[in-house]
C-alpha cells in the first residue's frame, strides 16, 4: 500500500505515453464492449421480458406462413391461456423513408394485457379503441418522428398491396427492455383494407401472441396448442418469447462467432502494443531500478510495482472505454439513426466485463517487462547508459 503514491507517480511520469496507451486500450475496448452488447443487450431484455410468460404461436412454416384469424379465438380457449392477440407485420413504407420501422396489426382490447409492461394513459387507450383507423405509437419513435396525438401516419404497403392512413391516438411507454418503437393499429382496419382489394390472403394473422397463466403452465399450453391444430391446413408452432427472439438472432447468421473473432484480434493487438510501451518504460528506467535494488528493494516488490503500473494504465483505459461506452449509449439516442437500434444499450455486466478485460490486458502486457525489471542486474543496471 505504501508504494501506491510511487506507482501512481510512475504512471504519470511520461504523461503522453501513458495517456496514449490508455487511449489505445480505451478505444479498442469501446469497440469490443459495443460489439458484445449487440448480443448481451438482447439477451438481457428477453430475460426480463420472459417474466410475462408470453408464447408466440407461428405457422409451422415460420413467419412466412399465415394463420387464419379464427385461430385467435380458438387459441384463447386453450386452458392456461389468459390473453390472446393477433400480430401482423405490415412492413409499410412511411413517406420517402427507405428503412421500415415495426408496424403491427393487432387487437386494441387485449394488447396491453398481453404486454402488461407497456403503459398508456387510460384516455388515450380509449381514444384508440374507439377510432378504427387510429394507432398507438411507442414513445421513442414518437419522439424521433415528431409524432403527437392527432398526427397522421400514411403507410404504403410493401408486403401487402394496401395502403393505410393512420392517426396517432395514443403514445405508449415502457421499460427500456421493451421495444418502444412500434406502431400498433387495429387488425380489422388492416384486414378490411385487404378485403376491399380482393387480396387472396386476407383474414390471416402473421402470428398469435398469448400470455400463459404461469411459467409452469407454458410447456403444457404449448403442447395443447400444437395438438389442437396438428391436422389442420395451417399447423402451428408455438415458441416462448425468448426462443422467438433467439430465432431472429439466428437469422442474422453467425454474429456471435464474428464478434468473438474480431474481439480476439483486438485484444491480441492490444496486448502487443501495451506490452511494447511497458517494455519501453522499463528500459528507460533500468538505472533507476538498479538503484532501487541497491537500496534494498527485493525482486517481488519491483515485479509488483511494475505490474501494478501496467494494470493501472489498463484500468484507466478500461474506465474510459467500457464505462465511456455505457455512458455514451445511455445519453445518445440511436433510434433516430435506425429504428432497430432503439433498444440498443450497454448492459452493466458487459461494461464491467470490459473493465475486467482491460485490467487483464494491463496485467498480461506488464508480465514480461515487469519480470525483466525485477531481474535487472544491479551492477550492470547502474552502469547502463540508456
Amino acid at each position, binding site marked *: 500500500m505504501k508504494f501506491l503514491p510511487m506507482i501512481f507517480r510512475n504512471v504519470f511520469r511520461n504523461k*503522453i*505515453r501513458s495517456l*496514449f*496507451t490508455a*487511449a*489505445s*486500450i480505451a*478505444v*479498442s475496448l*469501446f*469497440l469490443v464492449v*459495443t*460489439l458484445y452488447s449487440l448480443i448481451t443487450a438482447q439477451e438481457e431484455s428477453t430475460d426480463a421480458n420472459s417474466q410475462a410468460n408470453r408464447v408466440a404461436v407461428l405457422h*409451422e*412454416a*415460420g*413467419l*412466412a*406462413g399465415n394463420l387464419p384469424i379464427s385461430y385467435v379465438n380458438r387459441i384463447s380457449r386453450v386452458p392456461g391461456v389468459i390473453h390472446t392477440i393477433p400480430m401482423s407485420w405490415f*412492413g409499410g413504407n412511411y413517406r420517402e423513408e*427507405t428503412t421500415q420501422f415495426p408496424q403491427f396489426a393487432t387487437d386494441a382490447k387485449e394488447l396491453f394485457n398481453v404486454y402488461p409492461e407497456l403503459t398508456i394513459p387510460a384516455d388515450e387507450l380509449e381514444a384508440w379503441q374507439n377510432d378504427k383507423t387510429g394507432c398507438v405509437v411507442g414513445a421513442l419513435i414518437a419522439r424521433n418522428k415528431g409524432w403527437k396525438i392527432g398526427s397522421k401516419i400514411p403507410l*404504403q*404497403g*410493401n*408486403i*401487402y*398491396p394496401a395502403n393505410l392512413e393512420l392517426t396517432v391516438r395514443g403514445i405508449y411507454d415502457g421499460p427500456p427492455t421493451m421495444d418502444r418503437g412500434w406502431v400498433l393499429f387495429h387488425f380489422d382496419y388492416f384486414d378490411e383494407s385487404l378485403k376491399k382489394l380482393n387480396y387472396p390472403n386476407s383474414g390471416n394473422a402473421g402470428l398469435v401472441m398469448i400470455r400463459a397463466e404461469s411459467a409452469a403452465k407454458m410447456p403444457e399450453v404449448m403442447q395443447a396448442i400444437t395438438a389442437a391444430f396438428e391436422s389442420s391446413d395451417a399447423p402451428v408452432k408455438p415458441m416462448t418469447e425468448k*426462443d422467438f427472439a*433467439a*430465432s431472429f438472432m*439466428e*437469422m*442474422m*447468421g*453467425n454474429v456471435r462467432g*464474428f464478434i468473438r*473473432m*474480431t474481439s480476439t*484480434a*483486438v485484444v*491480441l*493487438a*492490444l496486448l*502487443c*502494443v501495451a*506490452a*511494447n*510501451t511497458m*517494455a*519501453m518504460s522499463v*528500459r*528507460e528506467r533500468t538505472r533507476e531500478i538498479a538503484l532501487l535494488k541497491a537500496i534494498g528493494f527485493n525482486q517481488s516488490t519491483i515485479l509488483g510495482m511494475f505490474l501494478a503500473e501496467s494494470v493501472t494504465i489498463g484500468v484507466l483505459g478500461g474506465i474510459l472505454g467500457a464505462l465511456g461506452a455505457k455512458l455514451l449509449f445511455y445519453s445518445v439516442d440511436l433510434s433516430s439513426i*435506425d429504428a*432497430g437500434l432503439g433498444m440498443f444499450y450497454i448492459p452493466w455486466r458487459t461494461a464491467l466485463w470490459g473493465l475486467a478485460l482491460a485490467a487483464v490486458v494491463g496485467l498480461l502486457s506488464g508480465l514480461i517487462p515487469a519480470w525483466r525489471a525485477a531481474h535487472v542486474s544491479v551492477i550492470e543496471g547502474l552502469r547502463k*547508459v*540508456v
Partner: protein
Amino acid sequence: MIPIKYNYRSLMARKVGSLMTVLGVGMVVWASIFAFGLSAGLDKTLEIAADPLDVIVLRKGSTSEAVSAVTESAAREITALPGIETDKYGNPLAASELVVFAYLPRRGSTQPVNVSVRGVDPMSRNLREGLEIVEGRDFTPGVREAIVSSAMSQRFQRLGLGDKFKVEGGEFEVVGIFEAGGGAVESEVWTDQPVLAQLAKRTGAMSSLQLRAASQADQERLVNRIQNDEQIDLKATTEVNYYAEQAQQSSLIKVVGYMIAFFLTIGAMFAVANTMYGAIASRAREIGTLRALGFGRLSILTAFVLESLVLCLAGAVLGCLGALAITFFLGGIQTGTMNPGTFTEVAFSFDFGPRVLAQGAILAVVMGLVGGFLPALRAVRMKVVDALREV
C-alpha cells in the same frame, strides 16, 4: 534527404519493439479486412446476381419477389412486348417464377430460418446461363424433386443430396446440386414451378416475371412501357437496381464494419505514436547530431514519418498475408446471413479481393502518417544544443 536505410537500421536496432508494433498493426489491419470482407462479400453476391440486360417485373409497391404477385395475363401481355431477347427457336427470354419460403435449420442449429425456394420455368435456365449441375441430376418436371445450390446444401440440414425437405406442406427430394458462379441464385433451391404453384395454391399469379431485353435501349423502353401501363399496373426494374436496393437494405452490416475499422484505426494510431515517441526519445542525441551535420528540419520530419509508415506498411503486409492465408489454406470462408430485403438466407463468402486488401492497407497508411506525425514534429522541434546534451 536522410537515406531510408537509416530508418530501416533504426527499426532493426530495436527488433522486439518494432516487431510488437508491426504485430499490433497487422492484427488491426487483419480484423479490418475481415470486417470489410464480410460486407464486400455480401455486396458482391448480390452484384453478380444481376445481368445488365435483365428486367424483373413485380407487383407495384413490393420490394422483393416473395411478397409480389404477377398475374398470368399480365405476364402474357408483357412477354408479347417487343424488345425482349429471344432464344434460338425465337421464343422470348422471359420466365414467370414463383418464390416461396422453406423453413429449415442450418447445420449445427435447431432454430429454422427462411430459405428461398424458386419454382422455375424451362426458360429460367436461359436467363441464368452460369447454372450447372455438379452432382446428381436435374429435377424431373411434374414431380416433387428439387435441385439445391452447393453452398446451401452444405449450410443447411435436409438439403444434402438425397435428403427430403418440406415446403408448402409438400415433401421434396433433393436430386441434384448446382453451382452458378456465385450470385444470389446460389442461395436458392430450385424446383418445377407448376408443382410448387399447386402446393402453394398459387395458380393464376406467380411472384415475378424475369426477362432479358435485347439491348440497352430496349431495356429502357421496356421498363418505361411496363411502368407507365395502367392496365398492367406492375413495377419493372432492371435486375441491377433490384439487387442494388437489396444490398442497400443490408447497410447495417456495412455500418458495423466501418465502425470496427474506424475505432481500430484510431486505437492503432495511438499505439504507433507511442512507439515513435519512444524511438525519438531514445534517439535524441542522434537527432541532434543529424541536425548539427546539416540535415534540415523537413528532411528529419520526413525521415521519422517515413519510419512510422514503414512500420505500419509492414503491419499491413502481415495483415493482408493473414487474410490471404485464409483463402489459401481454408479456401475462403463461407457464411450466410439474412438478406433484410427478402428475409431469407443469403449464402456468401468473405471477399478478400484486391479492393478489400487495399482498403486495409490504406488504413495502415493513415495510421502511419497520423501516428508518426506528432512524434516527428517533436523530433524536429528539439533544439540542437539540448538534443546533443541528452543522455
